[in-house]
């Protein structure tokens, strides 16, 4: 009996028991669909994480201001009242030999006006190196120049979203924007940046809506929210004294983040530990900052992905095992039910091997068909998830091929025993059966 005949027989057998075939296939369908949907979600999350990490750059370290609460907060006020401050950036630059660029940033929310309507935008005070370190690209004009810092110039560079919000389709170059009460001249535009849909890491945010100004302008003109609250136990006199010492005030002014770019990505680890010890000393043991190393996040995310994959493989194999057992069960029932048919086939010239092949192919047809339906459902499910939950999903060809292969394998493994049972039927007994 040709393979095609056997497959045709298998198919017609399936079609003659539609309900039973469907129920039999269900295990494989769900197994395969679950695997594909889950792999797609996992792969999507992985891509997302990788993209975001890559966007941060793997040769950088982010030192971020962290808010402290509870008991430690009082101690922090006492020992390190300014949190992450400008002098920290300076000492990191002085101490770390690996550090290629050290970029302080200062983020402040302010109302920005072009016409009459104020828009709340994040104002980022920073230095010229920020452009390189943040992997941004200029679309038009220029970024901040050292002379802007030196001359304390009121210039600004707009992120793509900020430009759209403030100017629409007008050309903003050379125009002025009003931030709080101060006027800034627009000197440059940043290219739009791809931003992932899910925020996998708090270190990342949508940079497109930022407005960049020279850091010293930010220090003198804007206050970081947390610094505005006057600590209770500092006397008014001390405050006045601090304000009078303007030089100290620059160094002690709060930063949101210090981005350290190192010589090469291998140096992030050692640099991070140096940064940690420098800050530990200057902050007197108060952890009012956090150090984020994208290269390490990358490793962590790969590790997580591996664990996720193992868990998924386990779930998938359990569901396929259950599906396989269901198939074996039905195939055994089928063999008993079709004993007479087996007898007739043997009588007209089918060898044992013909019978084995026929029943194996029937099991294979069930599982492969189930696998195909499962693939369609899995891919559809992944699509639905990305459409409705707005999760990024990546349907991997590998997952499709492997899960189809596994469902075929399930058919072979669990079809084997019933098929051999069928072949072992004595034709004389079989013809008398029923």
């Amino acid at each position: 009996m040709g393979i095609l005949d056997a497959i045709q027989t298998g198919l017609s057998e399936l079609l003659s028991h539609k309900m039973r075939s469907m129920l039999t296939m269900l295990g494989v369908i769900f197994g395969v669909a679950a695997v594909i949907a889950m792999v797609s979600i996992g792969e999507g999350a992985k891509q997302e994480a990788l993209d975001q990490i890559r966007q941060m750059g793997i040769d950088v370290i982010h030192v971020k201001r962290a808010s402290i609460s509870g008991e430690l907060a009082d101690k922090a006020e006492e020992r390190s009242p300014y949190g992450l401050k400008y002098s920290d950036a300076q000492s990191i630059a002085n101490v770390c030999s690996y550090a290629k660029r050290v970029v302080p940033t200062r983020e402040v929310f302010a109302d920005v006006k072009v016409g009459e309507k104020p828009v709340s935008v994040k104002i980022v005070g920073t230095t010229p190196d920020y452009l390189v370190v943040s992997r941004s690209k200029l679309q038009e004009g220029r970024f901040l120049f050292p002379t802007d810092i030196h001359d304390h110039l009121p210039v600004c560079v707009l992120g793509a979203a900020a430009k759209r919000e403030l100017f629409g389709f007008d050309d903003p170059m050379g125009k002025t924007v009003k931030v709080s009460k101060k006027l800034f001249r627009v000197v440059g535009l940043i290219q739009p940046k791809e931003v992932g849909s899910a925020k996998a890491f708090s270190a990342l945010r949508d940079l497109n809506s930022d407005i960049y100004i020279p850091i010293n302008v930010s220090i003198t003109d804007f206050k970081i929210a947390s610094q505005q609250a006057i600590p209770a136990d500092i006397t008014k006199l001390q405050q006045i004294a601090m304000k009078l010492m303007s030089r100290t005030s620059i160094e002690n002014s709060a930063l949101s983040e210090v981005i350290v770019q190192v010589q090469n990505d291998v140096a992030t680890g050692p640099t991070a530990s140096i940064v940690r010890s420098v800050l530990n000393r200057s902050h007197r043991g108060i952890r009012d900052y956090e150090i984020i190393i994208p290269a390490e996040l990358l490793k962590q995310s790969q590790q997580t992905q591996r664990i996720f994959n193992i868990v998924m493989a386990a779930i998938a194999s359990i569901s396929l095992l259950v599906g396989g057992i269901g198939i074996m069960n039905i195939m055994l029932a089928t063999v008993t039910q079709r004993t007479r048919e087996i007898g007739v086939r043997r009588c007209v010239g089918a060898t044992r091997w013909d019978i084995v092949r026929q029943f194996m192919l029937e099991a294979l047809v069930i599982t492969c068909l189930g696998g195909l339906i499962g693939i369609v459902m899995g891919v559809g499910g992944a699509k639905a998830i990305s459409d409705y939950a707005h999760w990024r999903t990546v349907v991997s060809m590998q997952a499709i091929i492997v899960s189809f292969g596994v469902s075929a394998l399930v058919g072979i493994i669990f079809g084997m025993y019933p098929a051999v049972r069928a072949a072992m039927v004595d034709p004389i007994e079989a013809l008398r059966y029923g």
Partner: protein
Amino acid sequence: MGGGLGWGPSNLSVIEVKDLKKTYKIGSVEIPALCGVSFAVEPGEFVAIMGPSGSGKSTLMNLIGCLDRPTSGVYKLDGTDASKLSDAARAAVRNRKIGFVFQSFNLLPRMSALKNTLLPMMYSSGRRDAKAARRALESVGLGKRLHHTPMQLSGGEQQRVAIARALVNDPPVMFGDEPTGNLDTVTGVEIMAIFQRLNNEGKTVIIVTHEADIAQHAKRILRFRDGLLESDEPVHEQLIAVPKPRE
């Protein structure tokens, strides 16, 4: 028309059985079913095998139908020793040299008459000759019922499909195991008429029956009792089956 005469000078028996024995073992108990049987069937013969139940006729049928192996003795089918063949080789013999017709028709219920007829072809080197199957069905008068399933056919029609299936590979021998047992007398006569026609066309036909008037349609009757051949006689007045015309 005597045995073998229609086949010219060659006196090669199509079936040759020598001292054939079959003993079934159930646990440690041995039950003899066939205790040494010898006979030969020439090409073109029409033989009826008779005997009460337990006489060994079913065992003999299974042995000469290559469904089972003898405990001892020699069985030659169409010149080749079939008693020592492997399972696969016996399957091939059943496929090409024997056409089986059963009491309960044994058609595959979900297949059309045509597909049922094609079945033996599916197991012979993969060739599928729908024309041959159609011809076989036409020769038993079912040319207009090709696509009916067994459920849609009467008992007589089902048996005729079974005959077509037995014929499709053009085997030298046709075996009928109580082929009229499940049919009424009129239909039984119709089936016997087909067997007689096939025999007249040169096929060797062997049927097992316990109905004396059915056996009278054959040319020779072998009677069995207690696992032994009791008598081997030619039929002197062969009944010629004439099917009654139906509306």
